């Protein structure tokens, strides 16, 4: 029996009907398309009455296939399929023909729009006539989540998921959690101290019974699929036994290497070779920096195991733990294998380094510093204990220049995007500076002031109006040194004049960039990233925390520049998604997956085993399968699709040279039927 297809054309208010004669599209479908037994239009198909119309007509007309001509299937395919399911129709018999994004929105001429819509609907009708019913794939769920990155995003996500009653494994590559937020002085727009609001959350992480924390660790590999990821974590050798160590501080007090630039203090302060990054670190237990430690350097030079070196064992000798000391020079990396159901990626960002802009000295002027360095200067826990003193000679700068958009909005040297946080943090810096250096003067060079956010505009105005920072609209073309001063040459585009400022210190509002290893992380997780190496969300508006790989979610600046409130909101969003996922015992997955054919012997499969499909698969879903004879000998090796991993992108089907791969719901037969139905004039 032939299929009875119903066509429902949506006006989308006037979004579609202004450029497409929807009545004509429905009429044509009913009159001319084979298999169409019913066609109508409706103002908003996605609305409740619209969905009711769909359900009613499926029942009344006995429809066995449905085409909804409306917006992108990314928008409402699920809506219409769910509506159809309630009538007992298989959801995969419902198709959406996109006549909005790909038609009405891009055309002005109604005649053209109408004609194209008619074509599009005809094509989708032809596909629908060949649709087969598909059943959702069911997979079990491991009720445990992995959070990668222990900055504020990872901390928030981990705590939310753990509070929801699920186990969380939090992996942090540094010796302590806290991330960039721990380095900040005060936070906008309220000027509350960053550490004061962050460190209690860090302690919560450490004490939470549902959270297992791995610091100084990295995710080595991720296998499996949504609900069932197999994760290998490398616990890098810390040379300190975390179970034994009490964090008594004896070891780092005796360490003779005291002049190592502290990463936490953005190289403005020093640390020892055995160290905790900052006093509030979690865990509050040290790690040995093997690159700088005298013992490890000696061992490398002599090519002996570190425990055999005698050059300096001060930290070991002083360690009061007995009978086994907490310092263990021989400690080796350890691989931990865990199974998780969901993953949150919260790997953060990197500040554009100081050595990019030649015109700003490329890092050769000590008193030209980055925003994060200024944070450390302004922080009470920083190298100057919160006093604003310039790095070169420790003098208090009386004239300070802030330059916004250093790297941001500059595709030639940095990145094309806006880093979003710099207008606000520069206003904050100007304010903090004025609070600490009353007689000083702050100049801010800006392109635009972009302070969109709750209480943000008011905050930036405060810097100008109450704190008296001089805002100059224009770029700085050069900085050079003249005696002890930095000469800042810039333009004031509002008065059309050149500006020359003799400054004591310059702060660059450096761009937020993707982490250096973003691509490696993306490859490990099989998730997509954009041209700037930020991880891509699945939909910019409607699925902002989901990655391209099901079961892996994004939080914080690894997805794009963000401030703290936005990061925390996204992290909680990701956590909610994880909890929804972990709340069920079984998962239903879209059955739109690829399949490599299997035939009776002696053919077994038309697959020739070239594995081109394996090379193009972005999700690592293609496996090699040996087809064996009864005696166990391999007859041939062919491709097989892991349904749990497959996302139904169809690359394998398009690549296959022997036409052995077919995508469920998108068979060659269906696609050809679509193409053949186009009337070429």
């Amino acid at each position, binding site marked *: 029996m032939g299929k009875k297809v119903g066509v429902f054309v949506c006006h989308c208010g006037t979004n579609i009907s202004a450029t497409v004669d929807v009545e004509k599209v429905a009429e044509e479908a009913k009159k001319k398309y084979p298999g169409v037994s019913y066609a109508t239009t409706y103002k908003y198909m996605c609305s409740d009455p619209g969905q009711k119309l769909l359900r009613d007509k499926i029942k009344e007309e006995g429809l066995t296939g449905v085409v909804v001509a409306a917006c992108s299937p990314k928008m409402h395919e699920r809506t219409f399929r769910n509506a159809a399911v309630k009538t007992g129709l298989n959801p995969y018999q419902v198709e959406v023909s996109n006549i909005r994004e790909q038609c009405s929105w891009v055309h002005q001429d109604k005649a053209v729009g109408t004609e194209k819509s008619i074509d599009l609907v005809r094509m989708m009708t032809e596909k629908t006539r060949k649709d087969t019913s598909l059943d959702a794939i069911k997979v079990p769920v491991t009720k445990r989540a992995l959070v990668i990155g222990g900055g504020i995003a990872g901390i928030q996500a981990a705590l939310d998921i753990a509070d929801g009653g699920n186990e969380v494994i939090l992996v942090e590559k540094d010796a302590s959690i806290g991330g960039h937020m721990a380095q900040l002085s005060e936070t906008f727009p309220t000027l509350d101290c960053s550490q004061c609001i962050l460190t209690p959350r860090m302690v919560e992480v450490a004490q939470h019974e549902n959270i297992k924390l791995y610091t100084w660790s990295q995710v080595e590999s991720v296998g499996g699929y949504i609900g069932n990821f197999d994760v290998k974590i490398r616990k890098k050798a810390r040379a300190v036994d975390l179970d034994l160590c009490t964090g008594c501080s004896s070891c780092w007090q005796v360490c003779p290497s005291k002049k190592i630039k502290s990463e936490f203090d953005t190289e403005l302060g020093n640390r020892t070779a055995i160290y905790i990054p900052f006093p509030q670190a979690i865990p509050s237990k040290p790690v040995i920096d093997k690159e700088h430690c005298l013992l490890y350097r000696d061992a490398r030079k002599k090519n002996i195991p570190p425990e055999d070196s005698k050059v300096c064992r001060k930290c070991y000798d002083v360690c009061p733990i007995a009978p086994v000391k907490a310092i263990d020079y021989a400690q080796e990396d350890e691989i931990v294998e865990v199974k998780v159901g969901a993953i949150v990626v919260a790997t953060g960002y990197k500040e554009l380094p100081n050595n990019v802009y*030649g*015109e700003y000295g*490329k890092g050769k002027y000590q008193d030209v510093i980055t925003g994060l360095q200024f944070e450390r200067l302004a922080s009470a826990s920083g190298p100057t204990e919160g006093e604003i003193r310039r790095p070169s000679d420790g003098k208090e700068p009386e004239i300070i220049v802030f330059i916004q958009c250093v790297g941001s909005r500059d595709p030639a040297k940095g990145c094309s995007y806006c880093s979003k946080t710099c207008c606000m943090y520069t206003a904050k810096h100007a304010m903090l500076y004025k609070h600490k250096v009353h007689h000083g003067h702050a100049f801010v060079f800006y392109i635009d002031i972009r302070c969109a956010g709750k209480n943000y505009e008011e905050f930036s105005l405060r810097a100008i109006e109450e704190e008296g920072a001089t805002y100059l609209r224009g770029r700085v073309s*050069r900085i*050079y040194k*003249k005696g002890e001063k930095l000469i800042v040459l810039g333009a004031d585009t509002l008065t059309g004049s050149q500006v020359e400022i003799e400054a004591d210190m310059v702060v660059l509002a450096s761009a937020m960039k993707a982490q250096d290893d973003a691509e490696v992380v993306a490859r490990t997780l099989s998730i997509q990233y954009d041209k700037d190496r930020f991880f891509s969300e699945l939909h910019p508006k409607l699925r902002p925390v989901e990655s391209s790989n099901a079961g892996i979610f994004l939080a914080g600046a690894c997805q794009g520049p963000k401030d703290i409130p936005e990061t925390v909101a996204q992290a909680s969003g990701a956590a909610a998604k994880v909890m929804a996922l972990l709340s069920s015992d079984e998962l239903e997955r879209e059955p739109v997956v690829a399949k490599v054919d299997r035939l009776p012997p002696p053919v077994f499969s038309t697959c020739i085993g070239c594995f081109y499909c394996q090379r193009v698969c972005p999700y690592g879903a293609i496996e090699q399968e040996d087809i064996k004879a009864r005696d166990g000998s391999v007859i041939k090796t062919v491709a097989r699709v892991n349904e749990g991993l497959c996302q139904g992108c169809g690359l394998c089907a398009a690549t296959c040279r022997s036409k052995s791969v077919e995508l469920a719901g998108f068979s060659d037969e269906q696609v050809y039927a679509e193409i053949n139905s186009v009337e070429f004039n």
Partner: protein
Amino acid sequence: MKIGYYPGCAITKGATSEEYGTSVMKVSEVIGPKIEEIPDWSCCGASSAHATNHKLSTALSVRNLSLAEQHEYEEILAPCPMCSQRLIISQKDVQDDDVLKREVEDAIEMPCGTNVKVSNYLEIIKNYSMDEIKQKIKKTAKGLKVACYYGCLLVRPPKVLKFDDPEDPQSMDEIVRAIGAEPIDWEFKTNCCGGGFTLSRPDVVVKLTNDILEGAQEAGAHAIAVACPMCHANLDMRQKKIEKEYKRKYDIPIVYISELIGLALGLGAIGLGLDKHFVDTKSVVDAYT
């Protein structure tokens, strides 16, 4: 390989900066590479042409490239950076724009010379003659502190010229080091000298050149090395006026990098044109022993 020599209007025989051209030729006779003047070369279209008529200035430049290709030169040396920059940009313009390319070909009645490589003087020395300098050096100027001044045109626009670091170039510094003098680290390597405004806005030029001279003096320079006739004119010819205007004493010889190389190779100062400068170059000549 044959390298075509394109002097351009400023440094050709009898022009205002002929000592640059003369010293380039003399130095090349000693350390190579061998260069030959491109027959029938014409204006590169700098200044007035490229400010008023894009097609005309492109055609003027490309004509020289085409001539070079006709005479089978694979590379052109254009010591004047205005010339080298115009030649390179015009070449790129016709490479990128087929319509312009056809129009230019109609105008010059030759196929566009899109393959010949255009190099400035520093590139030529760095690519071909550094070893030769080491072998043939006869004199050094130990303790002669030289501020290498690149100006704007040698390195900009970086996207097209792709030569050295546009903010902190090093190629001239390396050459100065190779000929036994001491390049200094200073702040004004690529600052603008006022260039073409030398006639229309001398007030601007005087301020800009003063910044450069002051920067060089404060960094302890005994001389400023240049590779551009325009920079040379602004710094050398105007130095007295700048001194008067700013009530300062500079007395800093402005020398072409080719002249410095020549001195190191033991060539005569007068032959190199060091007598043709406004600011006395004797201190530089005497420094070479």
